[in-house]
């Protein structure tokens, strides 16, 4: 299996098929990331389409040695989500769904509302960057090295950010939440 860098180099030389292989590899991950931040199927699809269009049009800007292709793609995805909300809501402080006020005209899929029921309110209290790092580390299984490339900061800063997030959640998450988890986890009956 060809690695990402080889495929990118081929793309940069005009080989569309190589980009197709990269697309197949990352479409679901990028869609999952974007959907977690938008909570709406059509919005997520629109943004993901923009992400891959940008990627293919700007593939020549990807530099070897400057990070992984995955991190580069996630960076484009994150920025495209931010642009979407700031343009749509004309508010520079809104980066994704979680920054929306309950008074905003929110379009959202019902099923994700149910799926995130247990943790959503905690995601709301976090800042955009904290939330993204949490999502990328816990749900997307990305390394801190890659997260740092996406966020544009050092690994240390990203780890520090997550440490602060956990401290904040420790203060906010009540004891009964832990008991629920222990029940669900079968550790207590």
């Amino acid at each position, binding site marked *: 299996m060809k690695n990402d860098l080889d495929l990118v180099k081929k793309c940069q030389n005009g080989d569309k098929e190589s980009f197709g292989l990269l697309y197949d590899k990352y479409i679901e991950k990028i869609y999952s990331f974007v959907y977690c931040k938008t909570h709406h199927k059509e919005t997520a699809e629109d943004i993901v389409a923009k992400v891959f269009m940008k990627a293919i049009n700007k593939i020549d800007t990807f530099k070897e040695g400057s990070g992984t292709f995955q991190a580069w793609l996630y960076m484009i995805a994150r920025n495209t989500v931010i642009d979407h909300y700031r343009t749509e809501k004309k508010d520079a402080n809104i980066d994704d769904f979680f920054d929306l006020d309950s008074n905003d005209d929110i379009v959202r899929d019902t099923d994700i509302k149910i799926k995130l029921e247990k943790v959503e309110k905690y995601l709301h209290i976090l800042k955009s960057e904290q939330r993204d790092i949490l999502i990328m580390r*816990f749900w997307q299984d990305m390394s801190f090295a890659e997260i740092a490339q996406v966020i544009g900061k050092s690994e240390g800063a990203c780890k520090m950010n997550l440490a602060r997030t956990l401290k904040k959640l420790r203060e906010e998450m009540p004891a009964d939440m*832990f008991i629920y988890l222990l029940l669900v986890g079968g550790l207590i009956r």
Partner: protein
Amino acid sequence: MKIQEILQEIYKIDDDMKNYEKELEKIIQSFIKEKPEVNIDKDFVIRLKNKLMNQEISPREKTKFSFTMPNFVFAGAGAALMFLLMLPFVVDFSTFNKTNLSQNDSWSARIESLQKNAFGSLSSITNSQDGDEFALNESARSITNADALEASDDIAPKQVIRTEEAVGLGGGGTMGADTVSGKMIAPYYNEIEYVYTGDDFDLEGDEDLVYKRVRSNAINNILANGISNVGGGLIDTSNFSDIQVNSLNLVETKEFGYSINFNSYDGAISLYKNYQTWPNVNNKCRDEKCFEQNRLSIEDIPSDDKIIAIADSFLGKYGIDTSVYGEAQMQNDWLSYYERAEDKDNYYIPEEIQLIYPLEIEGQTVYNEDGRASGLTVSVDVRNMKVANVNSIRQNEFVSSVYELENDENKVIEYIESMGNRNYYRGDDVEVNKVQIQLDNPEMILMTYYLYNEEDGSSEELFIPALLFPVVNYEESEYLYGRKYVTVPLVKEIFDEYYQQSTQDDDFIPRPIEPMPLLDREDEVITEEIDEPAKVENDNE
């Protein structure tokens, strides 16, 4: 397994978190468990792929760039090699292919994370400062406010020494034009009070990253190897061992040439005009009239945009890496003094205007303790419309470490309002001029801080979290106080030290020396009577 992996990564920068391991495990477990299952529409996947495959990808063009070697005169046989070896530290070739989707790789590559408190104690009790007073030290600030002392005569008080007081002070005579007019010193003191007038603010987090600049010895070693045999027949340098090259100077001999100083001890490169090759209109002046005629007028000063464009162009031409700096900020304090001067015709207009490209570490702008931006400084010669000098060209690499912060906002406000010199003893029946410095909402910044190593006398440059409070009534207090900002370091051990010093209730604090205003000569002048010299008797008479 995954949970432990995540925790171990965090413990590397903050091992205190181990105290809460059970709770943290539960939090991480809860989020991992609640990860939503996301189902993507397969039709969408196919549609999008088809659309992408119909896009044309333009093959990448070979990157073309040229680097013109400046016409430098080399100091020695090995110097050419040295200069070429140094180029990677100065020239960022990747900037020739910038696009809007440039990758955010700068900080991942430039910052190495160390364990918590890796730099040891940051307290000045154990680490003396590098000769600078703190912004926290109000008395020192008011003493050394050079801006106030340089202000126009009719605005800022000047320090004048009467003839009789000048005796014995080493300087001899008096200073300042005011003594010519017969002005005297009048004793009054400025009582400075700080008041926070901004909104309530929160200090989030009780820890944050402190950064330390990394000094590289690579330049030293390469240069030393390169010049080990350049004695020129006058000296055999091969017999020296453990050589380091601390400083190297290259000069351009062409018109408007430059001199470049490589200082490997500071890890910085400075560039300034080679004065011998720059025209000086005053060289042929033989009288004051000639100097006066050559002086610049305010109309000669170009717009800020034009000055910035000259600086930007220069930095780009010589490939000076600006990727870690923000946009240029003009340093136009002189202009505010000019605008207040009554005699503008005779006000000295500077020949060089300075700009600063502020250093930005992970999105945070770096400031000095006086509230001025810290970074790459460029001066533009406005007579010749060329860059005159560039200072602090550095290889910007850092290490970071977590340190505990002060996060009690009330304590911070208490501290800044305890600054000032209200408690200083100044004697009875002394006129006091009360000055209130009003501070507005603070901003989180990084502040430069020097960690002094008493063992070898070196200083290390740190960048610590701090608050930057703007002075609201700067216009009113400018000539007595002179700073637009007040900084407060938040690293706990540093903050605690200065909080203790500032809020302690001393019975007596020594009076600081302050510049004094002038009075007309109405009061009696006390003069010393000089006794007749004793007559020496000659024993032989």
